[in-house]
């Protein structure tokens, strides 16, 4: 991961949608998606710099509480990236992940968030381009949705 890209995402409040620099949190599994993100970085694929990556050992390590916490801390979007089905380093971690994230989408919608603020994507170690494409698409979706509606739980 290009560290410049991460740091360049520092934020400028919730101004007009044209100047809106979203805060996007990306959880990448150690074995596939982080390597995919790394490949995107070393291949110098251009991506909007508004995302921060957190490496986890498996996408199933992303406790739903992490997602809730991310929104509490002001994330405008959360992306969870893991190994393709049948490719999980831990055999079945990603199967848990996709169940959780499907239910999480229903949950955050009940909390009033646009469910598209949470996205699950499978990115393998060889898919630098897919990582780039996912980031571009997701950033555009989040920009279209605007800043997070969460205002400190009041």
């Amino acid at each position: 991961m290009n560290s410049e890209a991460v740091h360049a995402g520092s934020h400028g409040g919730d101004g007009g949608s044209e100047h809106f620099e979203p805060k996007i949190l990306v959880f990448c599994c150690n074995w596939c998606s982080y390597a995919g993100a790394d490949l995107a970085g070393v291949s110098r694929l251009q991506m909007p710099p508004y995302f921060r990556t957190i490496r986890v050992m498996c996408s199933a390590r992303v406790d739903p509480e992490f997602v809730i916490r991310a929104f509490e801390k002001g994330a405008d979007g959360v992306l969870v990236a893991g190994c393709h089905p049948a490719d999980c380093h831990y055999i079945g971690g990603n199967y848990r992940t996709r169940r959780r994230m499907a239910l999480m989408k229903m949950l955050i919608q009940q909390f009033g968030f646009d469910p598209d603020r949470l996205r699950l994507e499978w990115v393998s170690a060889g898919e630098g381009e897919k990582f780039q494409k996912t980031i571009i698409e997701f950033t555009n979706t989040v920009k279209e949705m605007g800043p997070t509606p969460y205002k400190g739980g009041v």
Partner: protein
Amino acid sequence: MAEKIKIAQYWGAGCGGCDVALLDIDAKILDVHAIADVVFWPIGFDGKLKDIESMPDKSITVSFYNGAIRNSENEHIAKLLRQKSVVMIAFGSCACYGGTPGLANVTNKKEIFETVYKKTQSTDNPEFVTPQAHLKVKEGELELPEFWDTVKTLDQVVDVDYFMPGCPPTVNLIAMAVDAVANYVTKGTPLPPKGAVIASDKTLCDECKRERVEKGRRIEKIYQAYEITPDPKKCLLDQGIICIGPATRAGCGAMCPNAQMPCRGCMGPTRGVTDQGSSMLSALSSLLNITDSESKMSEEQIMTLMTQVKDPLGTFYAFSLPKSPLRRTVTERGKRKVS
């Protein structure tokens, strides 16, 4: 015997069940009587707020506050009792986690008033008269507490020393708390550390006697509790009934599962967990029907599988919404419409 200690019990936004629970300790109430005078207990007898206001600070030994905080009066009395008490105990799920009244955080004052004072079938209120915080009449000014949009827990308003979850706290837990206070007063035994939860640190499953599948647990289909007659010996979750036990603190003795009803989570999250709802969501998702043909399942099929859970927020946060990190629902303001 030294001078009796003073205790107070107040109800905020609650149902009164906690007040009654205090009487459920039966003969132990005599132990309470032996060491304590009750100085304030609105459900029990007539006491005036001004009497409490005129007491010196820290002159009440223990205040039990039950109910959540959802209006200015709840807040005022919470702050008053905090000021006058040495020990402040959040008594019951509502004071600890928001409880059932906390589910009002999916809506707001405007919508609640519209439902209660206008839309219900039995309401005839063409001019839509609603309670006003202040009203001038010829005899003077009338005042009612201000109703809030968001329900809060006690510890979001004042400093709380101990938490006693449960809806209501069970006799055992109350006896435990009474003993702790009594031993402190009579023998000088130190009180538990500040912030302690007067219950177990383990999960409800640890106390539950039902037999669970130890290896390869899997739920084929989710049932509502009324849809099937569960096997009386087997784990309810294994039978497809959503039981919040895995994400809930033990201490109640697993009374609901023992009575063939699934746990709804009134004891709140276990130690180290802040969000009970996502904790249960995580546990349940991992159990749902993972088979050998999993890798061929599409995301749509997964979504269909998960929509068996009809109301994730209401199911997983039945008692803990105001205490969850998000606390309440939000409204998207962007151009996109949430479908």
